[in-house]
């Protein structure tokens, strides 16, 4: 049943959305931006929910991924798709530098990651010969046209980012269902207790960190080639951390698809509806929405949707019995 | 004598899980009431319900004849009814001394906190050595002593005690029962939940046996026969 819903939604996303919005660069652009956030959001939730590590510095991986990929493509002529994957690898490698932070817990870990994001940003600013310094990189190569599909255009970019997000979410789901997922869940507040029953908790956490960094890096790399411009301020901006977190929690960060749903909801509502209603202070509405959501459905939007559906289903069954 | 605490057809539990099914019992002033029963019978749950830590679903709790159903925990404490929980319920991030001082938090007790603290230290010399240690690092038994000492700092009128002997060395258990006896002699009303039935019965004025969330026996302390009591436990277990 669940699989059927998933397949239907994916079909709609891959075929329906391009058909309907293909001609509207603006809407499609917004959807791509929302999915970019969704990608980071899934990666963040993977680390936060499975690994029990709330990070306030995912911008670090986003930025590293985007710079690695952009520089590889621009300076070394690496094909863009390959560069994008290598961007993810770069972010994963960078995450190794952040591993001492795995010893830290809760807010200590969260802020250590923020510190890393700052440090990477400053390094990107200071490494002028490679990164172009504060001025950044303009005219980063765009995605090529492959077999007639113009990946450099809006629709092509949409398909790429959609695929990244879907793969990330599926990977997340697979891990969550595995024994690893169970052990990770068990670790949260009681890491010591899991260790004495044989769980190599540090290794598991490190693996999640690397995976999360990789996904974030790929998304960052995608974004760099998609908007074709980079600057330390932008690539490492705190928005790349803050928005995905807000979106993940809004959507329900303990579910796999919650972060995706949350990102789409928050970004599109804000840009399409609130901005329309209140051109200047529309973020105020967004803030209020976040508050209301947390107060009325602390588990996020996803549980709300699922609960609604489940209730309906139960109703139907009761009917059938009667 | 007029009952100090009356519990009538009490129903309570944890959300969807109901634990207490129409529990009724009375506690008389100045007496020691002992509640025994197998594990999971709902003894701790009963104490929690009386203290307002969990909501009451049905029935009533009366103190001095007035209903206290739905009263807030802190108000109950202020009226002199105090619970000494098991040792896990200390303040793990505070020092031993600060833990004890929290026992003197109710307004009436603050004045005498110094004297009471000395009294507690006298009962449990182990705590003196540990007075500046963070309570979360105490050994299990030390934490249990701290919980008891802290409760006594509150100078209660009625004291509900949950398994005080748990995890304590035999010498200390002896000391605990000596203290309980002394408090009873001083006129304190005590409600004691204890698995060490033989020890508890020795100081009991009234004994209740709980099983599966119900009171299945109520008897005056001096009339209870240990073997018969244990047989009752057992009878129920086979029946279940």
């Amino acid at each position, binding site marked *: 049943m669940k699989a059927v819903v998933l397949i239907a939604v994916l079909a709609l996303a891959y075929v329906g959305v391009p058909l309907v919005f293909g001609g*509207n*660069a*603006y809407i499609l*652009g*917004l959807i791509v*931006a929302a999915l970019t956030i969704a990608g980071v959001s899934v990666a963040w939730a993977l680390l936060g929910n499975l690994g029990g590590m709330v990070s306030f510095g995912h911008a670090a991986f986003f930025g590293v991924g985007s710079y690695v990929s952009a520089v590889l493509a621009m300076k070394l002529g690496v094909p863009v798709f390959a560069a994008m994957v290598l961007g993810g690898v770069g972010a994963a490698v960078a995450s190794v530098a952040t591993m001492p932070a795995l010893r830290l817990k809760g807010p200590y870990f969260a802020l250590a990651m923020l510190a890393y994001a700052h440090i990477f940003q400053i390094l990107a*600013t200071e490494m002028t010969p490679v990164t172009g*310094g*504060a*001025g*950044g990189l*303009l*005219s980063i190569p765009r995605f090529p046209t492959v077999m007639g599909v113009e990946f450099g255009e809006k629709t092509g970019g949409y398909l790429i980012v959609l695929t990244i997000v879907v793969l990330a979410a599926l990977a997340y789901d697979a891990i969550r269902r595995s024994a690893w997922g169970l052990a990770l869940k068990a670790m949260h507040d009681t890491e010591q207790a899991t260790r004495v029953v044989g769980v190599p908790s540090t290794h598991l956490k490190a693996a999640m960190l690397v995976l999360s960094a990789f996904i974030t890096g790929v998304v960052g790399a995608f*974004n760099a080639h998609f*908007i*074709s*411009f980079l*600057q330390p*301020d*932008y690539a490492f*901006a705190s*928005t790349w951390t803050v928005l995905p977190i807000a979106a993940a929690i809004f959507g329900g960060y303990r579910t796999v698809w919650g972060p995706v749903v949350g990102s789409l909801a928050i970004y599109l509502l804000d*840009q399409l509806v609130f*901005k329309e209603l209140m*051109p*200047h*202070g*529309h*973020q105020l509405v967004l803030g209020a929405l976040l508050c209301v959501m947390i107060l009325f459905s602390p588990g996020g939007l996803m549980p709300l949707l699922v609960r609604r559906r489940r209730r309906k289903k139960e109703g139907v069954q009761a009917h059938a019995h009667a | 004598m007029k009952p100090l605490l009356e519990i009538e057809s009490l129903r309570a539990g944890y959300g969807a899980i109901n634990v207490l099914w129409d529990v009724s019992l009375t506690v008389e002033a100045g007496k020691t009431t002992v509640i025994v029963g197998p594990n999971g019978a709902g003894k701790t749950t009963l104490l929690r319900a009386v203290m307002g830590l969990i909501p009451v679903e049905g029935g009533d709790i009366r103190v001095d004849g007035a209903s206290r159903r739905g009263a807030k925990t802190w108000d109950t404490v202020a009226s002199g009814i105090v619970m000494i929980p098991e040792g896990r319920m200390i303040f793990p991030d505070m020092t031993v001394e600060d833990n004890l001082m929290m026992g003197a938090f109710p307004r009436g007790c603050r004045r005498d906190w110094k004297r009471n603290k000395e009294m507690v230290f006298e009962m449990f010399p182990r705590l003196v050595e540990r007075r500046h240690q963070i309570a979360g690092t105490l050994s299990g038994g030390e934490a249990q002593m701290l919980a008891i000492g802290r409760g006594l700092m509150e100078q209660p009128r009625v004291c509900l005690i949950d398994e005080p002997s748990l995890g304590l060395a035999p010498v200390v258990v002896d000391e605990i029962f000596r203290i309980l006896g002394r408090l009873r002699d001083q006129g304190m009303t005590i409600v004691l939940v204890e698995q060490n039935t033989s020890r508890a019965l020795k100081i009991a004025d009234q004994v209740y046996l709980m099983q599966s969330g119900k009171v299945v026996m109520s008897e005056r302390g001096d009339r209870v026969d240990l073997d018969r009591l244990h047989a009752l436990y057992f009878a129920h277990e086979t029946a279940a």
Partner: protein
Amino acid sequence: KEFLLGSELPLTGNLARVGQGMHEGIAVAIEMANRAYAGKHSFKVSTIDDETNPAKAVAAVERLIGDGAVALTGGYGSNIIGPASEAAQKAGVVYITSGGVTPELTARGYPTFFRINNSEGYAKAMIGLLEDMGVKKVSVVYLNKDATTNLAKQVQSALSAKGVTVGMHEFDAATSDFKPLLNKVKLQDRSEAIAMVGYENDYVGILRAAKVLKPQVKAVVGVWSLATAQMAKEFPDLMENVYGTSMLPYPVEFTQPEALEFAAEYKKLFNKEPDYLGQFGYVQTRLLIDAIVRAEEAGTLAKGGLADELRRTDAQTLIGRVTFDAKGDNTNFSHRMGQHQTGKVVLVWPKDAANGAMRFPGVPW
């Protein structure tokens, strides 16, 4: 005929303040154009807040083009204008701005991109003033952003070439206490003038620190966002004798009729004196509108003739003569320098534009 112009500006976020300023100038230009072309054409502007975010600026541009905007005016911050004007270029729509001065923007050679000011023009003014002062040692204190670094480097190389000793001090946007930095200026550089390249809060921070430490300098010079009415009003004790780029004196002493009308309209709409941001926003928009009308009348507007028409611009404006080169830059652009003098801004450089004498040496303390 009614024309829709699009405008993408930071109305919230870090650059909100300057974005608002330009926004006001654009609004004035629209009002005045509607009056000037009354009966023939009318103009409307649709403004979208880019929230100081490049991706949202791109979205805004796409949205505006989708809504049928004939051209775009606005943008602030080189880093945001970069991607935004690229989106416009892709759609073949003209993008004109005064909010991005870095050379990289015009280096791209986009046929649809135009701007009326540039880094060189600011540098020219600052360098010219410092040369006129005849100072031999200068400390340049600059923000480590792209546009500011660029400008600071231009000033450094020009002054060094003239034999002036230049001390360079970079700072970060997060800097809020400038005392340690100024202490270096005071004790290590021992310079005669401080040249600041940053934004308002940086200037205020630097001047405050200088006021506390009292280095032995003869002048404090800055660039944009400094010699303004707003600053004179908000920080009277800090601004006295400070120099900054300014096209017009304050209170405005307009002589040309257009300028007078502009000032009156501004006052009417926003109930305050126009400042430099408003002036730039006005000028760029007015030039755009005039070009639109010319293209419309020539019948080339629909066929992408607007860019060519704009490139033919040669006008005397509030900010001086404007013409565009092949890459869309206004090579005539040279700024002027004003000095805060007892609550007013007096133009002191270049000589021919000056409306008062420079108070030199002079510092706010």
